[in-house]
Each structure stands twice: as structure tokens, then as C-alpha cells.
């Protein structure tokens, strides 16, 4: 008989059918098949046979679990293996829970880190066609002094759209519509902390801004304002905001739309969008870089060609961009800086760059930490599983005798892996969710859901599963290598089998991760201490900074003088600069021996007594003096760096030509040199600075108050009262300077916090690992210890024997850790202009700490094994 019923159907039947019923069912089905074969042909018979088989698949014919107990059944070994694994878990509850918990903690932490890093890398990728959207900044080079701006001239967008055919849309936004602060008045309440952008429908369109009410066209209408959902809620509560009016610095605007809040992974954050139409009054020119230009290319465009064309447009207009500050005859170039929108978040900080930035060094460090934790978790797990398996040799041996090749140790390992998967997966998910909550509430890091659903994150999860399976393969390999059946049956639990070599390496690697974490944490904490202790060149304690609402110099002065009446206000001052603001840069003509030289230099202005207020030191010459009338319009202070850069040994009396009040140029004399002070974060070096006197011609930005330290908190309500008396209906914004200064390192502190948690976890995991390995070791070597004791070894000797195993690990660990510590810490520190030196201590101490941890955790078992009573052990034989 060559003709068979379809084989797959037969196989399917055999698979599901109860063995008892198989024969009759199959018999009947076959009988029918051959009958049909003759009557109806093969094809129909095949179909009908398959149909019958499927119809037979009903509950009463299907195998029930009970039947799996029957001897000779294949699954019996699996069930036995599972039973062994479960029994082991129940027997060594401690080791089992350590194993599961530490792997879950490590995995959850690593997943959190990966999610965070992924989110940082996925900035702005939610925008449609983000590959084709770029931001155009400018690089201005005047006689070799180069400045990179994130901002660009106002007319650039218009010109690009006209002159470069590849550009589909070009648009810009401006975040400073007035020379003073943005104040929004709604229902007689005023708000000033909202970030408002004046822009056009084109930009909203390009950046894919989603309108909940209204459409992006309203951004082209005069006097319209668009609020984000949360701002609308803040301004109007539950009322419908559409059609309501808002007073913006005296202009009445209509609420014409509501948009979604910008998601946290977007480089551009805003609360309010305004139609640019109302604010083009003040320039509409090429002069200066004030706005942020975005372009969207058409699909066929090549960015390199476009860049060349943009360069031409900028080159054509470079005289207008640099403007009156430039005299012909000097080398000068204006070149575009083109960044893809998704790269802006992680690129270098440019001048006037309002985008939300992340330092890529920190991010890479976190990525390395994530990988460490994945590995630590698995290594720890592998190590413990291996240790556990060694104690099971005898059982596996017996199984092998009865089950032959079916009972290979691989199956035992696989059973172990499956059980672990059942425990670990839910545990990890729970820990992960807790971690997300904690990050959001305590660290201010929120991770968007779409990151967790994104392809890379799913890939990472897949990778985790693969690694897990891989680790189980390693253990089965080790077991297969090390256990020959005979010695396994004899119950020989040899510590010297080849698996132990691998285990030394594994424990060593795990410990080295702990050493690396400890070292990095030391370095990070030291670096922050160093930064806090470094001489910033000014005194930031007890200094209150108030944002001045109307920018009027003389009025501010009047108000500050009236504040002097309050007891507790010690000194007052005025300055244009504050830590988180961009410094103003200008072209200055510097007097040198060979005529004048042009430099782009930061500049700011101070009121009288500002140096005194912040305790800054004048190293040469004098401070601004209210008694010298020429100081107001004819004097400059410079900092030491500037003096050095300009090549002046005796700067006092030298002349500098800079911007005057209004648009003219004006010559002033240097009257003094200020000792270098660092107003920005210490990531940056101190740059040259030119300081002039504040007058009514310049917007007054900040009032500084030095308070009596004892009374500083009670004083604030009094100052607020005085403020509201003077500036009616204006929001009162204040900060302490030292707090503000600390906040400059927010990102770094985030990294530090993450590392601190990481350190805790890695120490915990390696402690648990060492503890349980040493527990097993005691168990394995109990007989040996007993014999040694009978032969005459004393307790100290036995203790030493036990500890020696672990000290060996430390040596391996330290050797692995040192180069990694060196590389990672230099990488991170390079990112600071002021940094600590890597001393030998950073390499020695973490190793010593780990050694101590090991001595403590394994010492418990060391003592236990040294105090062993030989009779208890040896009478079993």
C-alpha cells in the first residue's frame, strides 16, 4: 500500500489523542479513508480524512494531564526535572530568592536606564518627516574670532524660501518679542513664567503642532494667541478659553486656539504661541541673530547642496548681519550651522540656543551603566544557578541512568530557566513600574509611553530574553563539561572541576562591575564637591535676585533705594546678567600696539556697588564711581581673562570701541580690572568679559539684594509687599543666587543620583552573590573542612582557607576594573573645564571597599565553616 492518509493529520492525531483511544480512532479513520479512496479519489479522501481527524479533536479524546504520569511517557523526565527545580527552590529558599530578586532588580534598573537613554536619543522623532527638517544657526568669524550661534537673522527664513528651491518651507520663531519681560494679564492676574514663542502657521505646520481647538492658520492672524492645554487650564481654569482676551505687555490678544502640550521628548518647549504678525515692528532686517530658523526640504533634496546654497545666501548678506560693527578690510565670514531637528537635543550647546539640551557624555555613561547592569544581573544569576546545579549532580546522575540521553543535564538547566522566567518576568515588571514612578516623582524624569512601545525598546527586551537563554546554555555547557556520570553518581561534589575556572571569571567580572561603580561614584561626588568649593570669584550666599518687570533703570534704582529702608537688606545692585541667561556678545575694537583689533566679546552692565554686593575683587584700577560723571558713558571694566586675551599688561586707560546707546559706536576707556569670576556652570571656561555702566538706554533685567543671613526668609514677604506697592499688578519673581547656581548642574546631578542608586544596587547584588556563593562553598567543602580539622587544622587556618577563595576573585576583579575606570572617568571629566585629577586613590580604594564587603559577607560562612564539628560531618559516611 503506497497510498497513505495525509501524514500531518496522522501526526496531529497522535499528538493530541489519548493513547487508549488512539488505536480505534485511527483504525476507523483509516478504514473510512481507504473506502473513500476507492469511491471518491485521493484528493477528496485526503480532505475528508483531515476533516475527520479535526472533528475527533474533542475534549474527551484529548490527553489529560493525568495521563502524563504513565510510565514510559516522554514528559516524565520534564516533570521530574521541574520537580527537582521546585524542590531546590523550596530547600534553598534564601538562594532562590536572592537569585530571582537580584536578577529582577538589575534588569528593571537596566531597563529603566535604557528607556531613559532611548528617550533622550529619540528626541523630536515624533515629528512627521523629521529627517527633512533642519534648524539653521550661523557661525560668525571675524578676523579669526569665531562664535557659533543657534539663532539666525530674522530675514533668513524669507530669503531661503525664495532663493533655495529645495526648501519646501522655511519659518522661524522668536522668543524675545520685547526688550523686557513677557507679562500676560488674564482676569486681572498676571503671569510671567510662561515661555512664549512668536511664530507663524508654517512653523506650527512644520513642527507638527497638534491643535485641539482652532487650526494653525490663526498663527498668521494679527493679535492672536494660542495656549497649550495646561496653560489654558492655568489661565482660565475650567472655563472655555476660546475667544477670551489676554493682555500681553499692553497688547490685547484673542485666544484663537488650544494646542497639545509639547511632549517631554521635544527639544522645543513652549507654553504659548503668538502670531508673529504683531511683533515685526522692531527690526525686520538682517541685523543681528535674534530668531530661530527652521527649514523643511523637499524629498529629493540633498542637504549638502542645500547647505552650499544657504552659505551663498548668508555670504551675500554678511555685511548686513554683522552690520555697523564691521569695518571693511577685515576677514569676515558668516556660515550656516545646519542641524537636523532630531540632533539638536544632543548636539553641542551653541550660543543663544534655547533648545533643551542633554550632554551626550552623561548619556553615554548611563548607557554603559545600563549594559553593566544587564550583565551583572545575568552573571549573578548564572553564577548562582551553576552553584545550585553542582549540588544537584547526584540527582541528575540518577535521572540519567534511568532516562538515558533524554535526561541530559541540559533539560535540568532548561527547567530551571523556565521556572526563573516565570518568577522574574512579573517581578521585573513590578520593579520597573515602581522605578518609573520614583523617577517621575523624585527625580523629575518622565518617560513617555511611546518610548516603552518603540521598536528599540522592544528589541532590548528581546535581547534580554536572548541573553537569558544564552546564559542557560552556558550553564548547561558547564555542567555537561564537568560532570561525568560515574562521579556524579558517587556524589562527588568536586570543587576542582573545570566549571570552577569559568566561575572564578564570572564572579570576578561581577565584582569588577561593583568596583567600577564605586570608583565612578567617588569621582562624580568628588567632582561636584570640587565644583562647589571652587572659587567662583564672587559670593553667592544670601543673595536674592529679582527679575525687574519693566526694564527701566532709573525706576529700578529708585525702588532699590527705598528697599534700603528695610532692616535686613544690606546691599542692593543692578545687573543685566543672570546665570541662566545668554550673555550679550558684541564686536569690540580693541586698542593694541599695532592699531585696533576686532573681537567678539561678552558684555554686560552693572550698577554702582555691584562688585561690592557680590564681594568681587578689583585687581587693578577702580570700580564705577558715582562721583565720577564720565563713568556713566565713558568707562569699561574688564575681567582678567579679557586683559590677558587683549594682551594688555596695564589695561587701565586703554580704549575700547563698542556699541553705544542706540545704534552708534562709542569709545570708552578701561578704568579697572575685575578678578575672574565664573557666572556660568563650571563646564565652561571663563571667557573675556567687558562691563559697562547701566543707564536708561539699556534694559534693566535683574535687581540683586544682599540680605542679612539671619532674617533672609522673613524678609522676602516684606520685599514682596514693597514690590507690589511699586509695581502694581506685576508678578514677583525671585530666586536665591546660590540655589540657582546649583541648579545649573541639574543634568549632572541627575546622573549622580542615578549612579548612586546604581551603586547601591550593584553593591547589594554582589553582596548577595558573594554571600550565597560562600554558603554553597561551605556546604560543598564541609567534608574537607571536617577532615582538615581532625588532622589538626585550627580555626584561623580554616577561616583563611575559606576567605582565600574570594580574595582570588578580588584580584581578577581589580584587574578587569582598572582600565575601565580610567577610560570612563576621563571621558566624563573631560566634559568639565574645571576638573579633579585622577589620583591613584580612585583605583585603590574601591578595590579595598569591595574586599571589605567580601570579608564581611563571606566571613559569616568562613567562621561557620571553621567552627564545624568534624563528627557531625563525617559520621554520615
Amino acid at each position, binding site marked *: *500500500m503506497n497510498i497513505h492518509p495525509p501524514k500531518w493529520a496522522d501526526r496531529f492525531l497522535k499528538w493530541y489523542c489519548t493513547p487508549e*483511544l488512539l*488505536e*480505534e*480512532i*485511527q*483504525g*476507523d*479513520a*483509516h*478504514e*473510512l479513508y*481507504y473506502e473513500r479512496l476507492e469511491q471518491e479519489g485521493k484528493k477528496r479522501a485526503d480532505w475528508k480524512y483531515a476533516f*475527520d481527524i479535526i*472533528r*475527533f479533536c*474533542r475534549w*474527551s*479524546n484529548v490527553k489529560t494531564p493525568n495521563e502524563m504520569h504513565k510510565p514510559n511517557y516522554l514528559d516524565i523526565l520534564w516533570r521530574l526535572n521541574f520537580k527537582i527545580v521546585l524542590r531546590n527552590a523550596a530547600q534553598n529558599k534564601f538562594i532562590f530568592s536572592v537569585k530571582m530578586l537580584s536578577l529582577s532588580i538589575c534588569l528593571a534598573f537596566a531597563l529603566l536606564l535604557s528607556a531613559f537613554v532611548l528617550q533622550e536619543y529619540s528626541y523630536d522623532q515624533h515629528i512627521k518627516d523629521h529627517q527633512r527638517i533642519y534648524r539653521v544657526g550661523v557661525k560668525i568669524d571675524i578676523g579669526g574670532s569665531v562664535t557659533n550661534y543657534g539663532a539666525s537673522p530674522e530675514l533668513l527664513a524669507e530669503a531661503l524660501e525664495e532663493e533655495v528651491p529645495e526648501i519646501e518651507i522655511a519659518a522661524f520663531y522668536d522668543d524675545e518679542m520685547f526688550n523686557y519681560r513677557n507679562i500676560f494679564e488674564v482676569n486681572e492676574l498676571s503671569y510671567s513664567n510662561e515661555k512664549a514663542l512668536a511664530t507663524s502657521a508654517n512653523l506650527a505646520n512644520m513642527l507638527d503642532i497638534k491643535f485641539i481647538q482652532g487650526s494653525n492658520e490663526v498663527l498668521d492672524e494679527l493679535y492672536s494667541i494660542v495656549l497649550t492645554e495646561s496653560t489654558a487650564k492655568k489661565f482660565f481654569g475650567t472655563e472655555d478659553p476660546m475667544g477670551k482676551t489676554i493682555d500681553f505687555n499692553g497688547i490685547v490678544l484673542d485666544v484663537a486656539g488650544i494646542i497639545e502640550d509639547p511632549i517631554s521628548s521635544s527639544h522645543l518647549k513652549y507654553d504659548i504661541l503668538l502670531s508673529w504678525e504683531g511683533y515685526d515692528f522692531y527690526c525686520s532686517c538682517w541685523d543681528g541673530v535674534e530668531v530661530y530658523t527652521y527649514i523643511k526640504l523637499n524629498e529629493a533634496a540633498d542637504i549638502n547642496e542645500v547647505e552650499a546654497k544657504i552659505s551663498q545666501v548668508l555670504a551675500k548678506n554678511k555685511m548686513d548681519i554683522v552690520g555697523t560693527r564691521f569695518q571693511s578690510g577685515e576677514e569676515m565670514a558668516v556660515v550656516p550651522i545646519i542641524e537636523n531637528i532630531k540632533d539638536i537635543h544632543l548636539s553641542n550647546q551653541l550660543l543663544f540656543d534655547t533648545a533643551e539640551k542633554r550632554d551626550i557624555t552623561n548619556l553615554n555613561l548611563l548607557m554603559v551603566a545600563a549594559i553593566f547592569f544587564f550583565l551583572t544581573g545575568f552573571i549573578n544569576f548564572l553564577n548562582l544557578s551553576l552553584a545550585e546545579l553542582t549540588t544537584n549532580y547526584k540527582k541528575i546522575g540518577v535521572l540519567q541512568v534511568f532516562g538515558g540521553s533524554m535526561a541530559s543535564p541540559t533539560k535540568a538547566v532548561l527547567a530551571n530557566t523556565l521556572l526563573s522566567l516565570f518568577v522574574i518576568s512579573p517581578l521585573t515588571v513590578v520593579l520597573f513600574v515602581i522605578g518609573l514612578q520614583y523617577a517621575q516623582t523624585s527625580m523629575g524624569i518622565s518617560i513617555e509611553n511611546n518610548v516603552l512601545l518603540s521598536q528599540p525598546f522592544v528589541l532590548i527586551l528581546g535581547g534580554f530574553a536572548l541573553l537569558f537563554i544564552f546564559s542557560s546554555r552556558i550553564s548547561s555547557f558547564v555542567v555537561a563539561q564537568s560532570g561525568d556520570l560515574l562521579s556524579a553518581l558517587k556524589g562527588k561534589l568536586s570543587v576542582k572541576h573545570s566549571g570552577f575556572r569559568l566561575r572564578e571569571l564570572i564572579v570576578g567580572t561581577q565584582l569588577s562591575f561593583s568596583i567600577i561603580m564605586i570608583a565612578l561614584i567617588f569621582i562624580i561626588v568628588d567632582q561636584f564637591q570640587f565644583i562647589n568649593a571652587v572659587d567662583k570669584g564672587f559670593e553667592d550666599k544670601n543673595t536674592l535676585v529679582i527679575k525687574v518687570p519693566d526694564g527701566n533703570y532709573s525706576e529700578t534704582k529708585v525702588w532699590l533705594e527705598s528697599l534700603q529702608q528695610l532692616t535686613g537688606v544690606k546691599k542692593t545692585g543692578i545687573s543685566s546678567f543672570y546665570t541662566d541667561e545668554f550673555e550679550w556678545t558684541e564686536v569690540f575694537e580693541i586698542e593694541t600696539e599695532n592699531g585696533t583689533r576686532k573681537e567678539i566679546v561678552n558684555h554686560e552692565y552693572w550698577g554702582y556697588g555691584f562688585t561690592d554686593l557680590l564681594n568681587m575683587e578689583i585687581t587693578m584700577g577702580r570700580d564705577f564711581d558715582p562721583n565720577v560723571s564720565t563713568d556713566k558713558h565713558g568707562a569699561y571694566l574688564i575681567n582678567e581673562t579679557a586683559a590677558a586675551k587683549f594682551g594688555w599688561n596695564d589695561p587701565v586707560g586703554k580704549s575700547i570701541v563698542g556699541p553705544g546707546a542706540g545704534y552708534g559706536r562709542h569709545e570708552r576707556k578701561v578704568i579697572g580690572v575685575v578678578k575672574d569670576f565664573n557666572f556660568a556652570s563650571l563646564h565652561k571656561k571663563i571667557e573675556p568679559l567687558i562691563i559697562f555702566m547701566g543707564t536708561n538706554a539699556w534694559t534693566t533685567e535683574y535687581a540683586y539684594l544682599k540680605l542679612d543671613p539671619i532674617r533672609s526668609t522673613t524678609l522676602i514677604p516684606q520685599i514682596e509687599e514693597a514690590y507690589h506697592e511699586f509695581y502694581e499688578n506685576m508678578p514677583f519673581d525671585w530666586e536665591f543666587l546660590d540655589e540657582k547656581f546649583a541648579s545649573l548642574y541639574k543634568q549632572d546631578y541627575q546622573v549622580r543620583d542615578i549612579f548612586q542608586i546604581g551603586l547601591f544596587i550593584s553593591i547589594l547584588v554582589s553582596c548577595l552573590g558573594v554571600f550565597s556563593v560562600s554558603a554553597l562553598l561551605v556546604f560543598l567543602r564541609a567534608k574537607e573542612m571536617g577532615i582538615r580539622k581532625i588532622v589538626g587544622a585550627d580555626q584561623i587556618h580554616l577561616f583563611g582557607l575559606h576567605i582565600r577563595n574570594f580574595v582570588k576573585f578580588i584580584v581578577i576583579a581589580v584587574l578587569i576594573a582598572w582600565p575601565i575606570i580610567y577610560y570612563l572617568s576621563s571621558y566624563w571629566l573631560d566634559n568639565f573645564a574645571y576638573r579633579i585629577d585622577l589620583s591613584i586613590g580612585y583605583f585603590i580604594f574601591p578595590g579595598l571597599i569591595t574586599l571589605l564587603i567580601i570579608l564581611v559577607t563571606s566571613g559569616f560562612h568562613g567562621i561557620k565553616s571553621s567552627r564545624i564539628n568534624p563528627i557531625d560531618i563525617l559520621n554520615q559516611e
Partner: protein
Amino acid sequence: MSTKGNYLGEFEELVLLSVASLIDDAYGVSVMKYINQETGRNVNISAVHEGLKRLQRKGFVESNVGGATQVRGGRRKRFFVLTDVGRSTLEEVMLLKLQLYSKVPNFKLKLT
């Protein structure tokens, strides 16, 4: 074993009657064919098996395994025979039905 009492369902009754009339040759395929031949109903082999199994569980039929035949690739048949309980149940069911039919007014059963 919990079944819905020891009642006889319509299809079960059919199978049981088939087993009764096939006497010594009642197994899955023959019962199926018999039903098909006598009633014209096209039943699936799996349904017949299910019915037989249930009848056996209720104790109406007994089964034993016969010899191997070439036709079935050497697989043995399971033959079913009516038990005493089965026979008395069939009679009971018949009587019950007759009793019920006789109470229907103007209803005459024509037995040909």
C-alpha cells in the same frame, strides 16, 4: 463519572439501536454506515465515537477489542454489544413513548 443522568439522548438512542441491531458487528464505522443507511442521516465518525463512548460510560453497551484486520493497517476494532441495562432502557424508552403517544387525541400510529 458525571453525566446528565442516565437518560438517553435522541442521537444516543439511534446509536444504541444500531448497536443492538448490528449484534456482533457493531464498531465505529459499521454503526455510522448503519445509521446512514437506515435513516439517511449523514453523521460524522467522530460523533458516533462520542456517542458510543457515552453509552459505554452509562453502562448501556460493553466493548471489547477484536482481532487485527488488514484493511485497517493492522489496527484492531473495538466492538460494542448491548448490555442488559441497555436492553431494558431501550424497552423503557419505547414504552414511555408509546404511553405518551397513546394519550394524544386523534393520533393513530400506522405501523406498516
